[in-house]
């Protein structure tokens, strides 16, 4: 299994770079038909390598590869790629692949530099409650990231419309309403996943008899508050479009800042 993992490790960044190149051509060049097929093939290949690597690590360590920073990043990258596939399939956002697969590629490359040796885990961390807590959190982070990318693209197109700049980027971006709705949908989904993760986490803490609350946890609650209030203000006060996009981006910046310091923990 070590050989399998050793082969896939260098293959993963190469696969993502090829994939990104095709998605870049798809967005930044006029003849997109030629690159559509290659973008699909290269994404399928990168996704397969990524999935294979996760399974390889799981088989090698006999546990879910979620515990170290590198592993969490690798899983987050997989989640980002996965929700891009979902979005491409459900909302035909293939043209935006460069922007949505891009974060996945970056995370995957960063993850590989952090991937280290196996850990000795205490029994508390082997609990399925904890695994679901982490999985839901990472899925929420991925959904928030996609929402933020879409919000940034919304603001780009909004600016181009207001300034009457009808360039290639303008032509390639999907309609403003679509970007707005997709961004809102992914941020709401992220909020639900984050809520679910919080409840699962609380359940796990109680089961394991843990205690304490770190300051980073408060940061996570702040992220949740920003995203939930974005969804609420949109629904109640009709804060859509530019305001909503700015709100989503604010939430994402808070999320990044909170996580820059590392993941929160508990005292045993």
């Amino acid at each position, binding site marked *: 299994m070590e050989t399998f993992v050793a082969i896939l490790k260098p293959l993963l960044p190469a696969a993502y770079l090829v994939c990104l190149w095709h998605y870049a051509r798809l967005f930044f060049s*006029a*003849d997109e*038909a*030629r690159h559509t097929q290659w973008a699909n093939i290269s994404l399928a290949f990168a996704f397969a390598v990524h999935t294979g690597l996760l399974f390889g690590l799981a088989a090698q360590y006999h546990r879910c590869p979620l515990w170290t920073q590198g592993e969490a990043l690798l899983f987050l990258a997989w989640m980002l790629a996965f929700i891009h596939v979902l979005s491409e399939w459900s909302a035909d956002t293939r043209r935006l692949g460069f922007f949505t697969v891009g974060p996945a590629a970056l995370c995957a490359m960063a993850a590989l530099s952090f991937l280290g040796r196996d850990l000795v885990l205490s029994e508390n961390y082997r609990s399925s409650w904890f695994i679901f807590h982490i999985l839901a959190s990472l899925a929420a982070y991925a959904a928030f990231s996609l929402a933020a990318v879409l919000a940034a693209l919304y603001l780009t*197109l909004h600016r181009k*419309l*207001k300034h*009457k700049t*009808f*360039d290639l980027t*303008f*032509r390639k971006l*999907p*309609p*403003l*309403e*679509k970007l707005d709705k997709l961004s809102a949908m992914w941020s709401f989904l992220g909020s639900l996943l984050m809520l679910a993760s919080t409840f699962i986490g609380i359940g796990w803490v109680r089961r394991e008899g843990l205690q304490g609350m770190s300051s980073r946890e408060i940061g996570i609650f702040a992220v949740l508050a920003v995203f939930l209030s974005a969804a609420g203000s*949109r629904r109640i*006060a*009709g*804060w*859509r*479009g*530019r*305001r909503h996009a700015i709100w989503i981006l604010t939430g994402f910046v808070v999320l990044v800042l909170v996580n820059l310091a590392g993941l929160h923990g508990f005292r045993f």
Partner: protein
Amino acid sequence: MEGKSQPGIFVLGANHLTASVSLRDRLLFDEAGVGEFAEKLLREEGVSEVAVLSTCNRSEVYGVAAEPSAARLLIEKLWAAHRGVSEDEIRNHGYFHVQTEAVRHLFRVIGSLDSLVLGEMQILGQVKDSYQRASQNHWTDFYLNHVFQAGLHTGKRIHAETAIHEGAVSISYAAVELARKVLGELRGRSVGVVGTGEMGELAAQHFHKAGVKNFLFFNRSLGSAERMAASFGGEAHLLTDLSEKISRCDIVVSATGAPGIVISRELVQNSLRHRHGRPLFLVDIAAPRDIESEVGEVDNTFLFTIDDLKNAVSGNLDLRRQEARKAEAIVDEEAAKVEAWARGLDIVPVLRALREKYQALAEKEVEKWASGQPPELRPHLESLGRGLLNKFLHDPTTRLKLMGEQGDGLRASYYADMLFALAQEEKQHGA
């Protein structure tokens, strides 16, 4: 093996670049006229295949003839008689291309490189229809079939590999395209048309074509608003009701002849309170302006004037011109393939003779071995004979075909004669 020279493809026609509108109208073939003309032409000596393309911007006769220049005179005569124009008019205001140039011309037409509006893709469907009609009526045979199918393939490649068809190139359609850029799908949206003059009606037509079914027409008098509501669907209102009803519109097109502002910033801001943050798309195509320019600064409101639409159109035309270069390269590539195919036709009689000779030999041998054997063995022997024939002839056939495609058909025929004694065989058959 000295065969006759291969027939050649030609096109005789007139289009928007060579003939005036009135002459184009007179040259136009109607549905019944095309059939009559093609049948008459095919009855004449020398023309073996015909397809007629007739649209408002061009009328063209594609054909295959042993002597294209002779066919030209014949077609000019028949066309002139058929449509009541003089042969001189066709000659002086038309064009005539043969062989590769005719193929390139057809491919450029299909690729919309020769269209009045560069990149309009309607022509692809028109050529397809013309070809289907010709093919169904057996006016075309293997030559034109191959050329038209290659042309339709070229059209599809141009459509898929270039952006020549992208972006609106008319002011009214640019408004529809921009509305789509803001709101996405227009089906189910409400369009308010302020001013029911010619411009308002044209805009309504374009939005109606884009799938909009719900219109609100505003005018000083109800008469013309009601007429437009009846033809496009929707409601007619007096201009004074605008402030009350504008919040129901997702798109507002203003084209009144009013001397002052009709839609103010305040009016739009008030309407947005009832829209729950849904975006409002406004187009001002009036001169002087109907919509206050500050309206564009309101959140979730997108205002475009006639100058903005002109800029969008001009940008799209520039893009189409850039993409036309890529499309021309595709045309050249595909025309070269057809040229190679046509050159390869010189070798077809040789290949046929080669195959006939060895097929006869194989059948003779099978007959010899099958006599006196149980009948169930015969299919196996026949199958063996066919298999060996195909395998033995595969390489020589491929090489000879390739030489033909590379323009070396004469040398290929000579080699085939020398190696397989085809001429001798022919003489024996002749004796």
